[in-house]
């Protein structure tokens, strides 16, 4: 599936990175610890988190992640959006809690 497929879901919206919404999502990773993501996520994953600061972008970019999903109505910081736009990382916000979003993504990916 692609990042753009997630945007068709209710309760989700694109905060930035519209030029990269054709990125392929291979799998997902749910964590709020940046070293956990650095150590264990792989290329093409959608990263689900409730963190909102700029450093997410460096991690997502270095790991070639497909997109960042900010769950539970948390609002991304402005400098995060600027950095993500520059690096071409789509950032999606959702009102769903991380657990629910992860479950939904898991089901879609394993259909």
């Amino acid at each position, binding site marked *: 599936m692609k990042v753009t497929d997630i945007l068709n879901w209710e309760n989700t919206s694109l905060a930035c990175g519209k030029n990269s919404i054709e990125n392929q999502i291979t799998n997902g990773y749910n964590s709020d*610890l*940046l070293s956990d993501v650095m*150590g264990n996520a792989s290329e093409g994953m959608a990263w689900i988190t409730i963190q909102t600061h700029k450093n997410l*972008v460096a991690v997502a970019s*270095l790991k070639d992640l497909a997109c960042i999903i900010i769950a539970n109505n948390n609002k991304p910081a402005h400098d995060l959006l600027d950095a993500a736009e520059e690096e071409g990382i789509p950032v999606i916000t959702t009102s769903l809690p991380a657990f629910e979003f992860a479950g939904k993504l898991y089901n879609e990916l394993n259909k």
Partner: protein
Amino acid sequence: MHLKYKIQGGNFSKAGFASSEVKKILRQLSIEPKTIKRLVVALYEGEVNIVAHAYNGLITVDIDTEKVTVTLKDNGPGIPDIDKAMEQGYSTASAAVREMGFGAGMGLPNMKKNTDEMTIKSVVNEGTEVIFINYI
């Protein structure tokens, strides 16, 4: 090829900049993606360690035909017990740093796992030097 990056302690808005630059250069040199991926994890963790713990630091990266050698040298508090610091889950990071999702005690173990050789030298109240090598 010899690269140098100055790192400012406490400046999280710049954390990852050096790692991104090195990644771009390694890609331009057509180094194998698998090798780049491991090196970038180790380098980012090292860079964040300087930002989170030290006053300032210098990262140097030397690339030759066989290997990439990275030296991360900082002026900072040093590490009193290196074996303890290498333990998964052990961290001395501040509450503010932990809130950002850093300081989970995974940085140095991540570095060890993603490098071929790694040595740490540290003097309390002076600073720390981490040198790692990844073969290409």
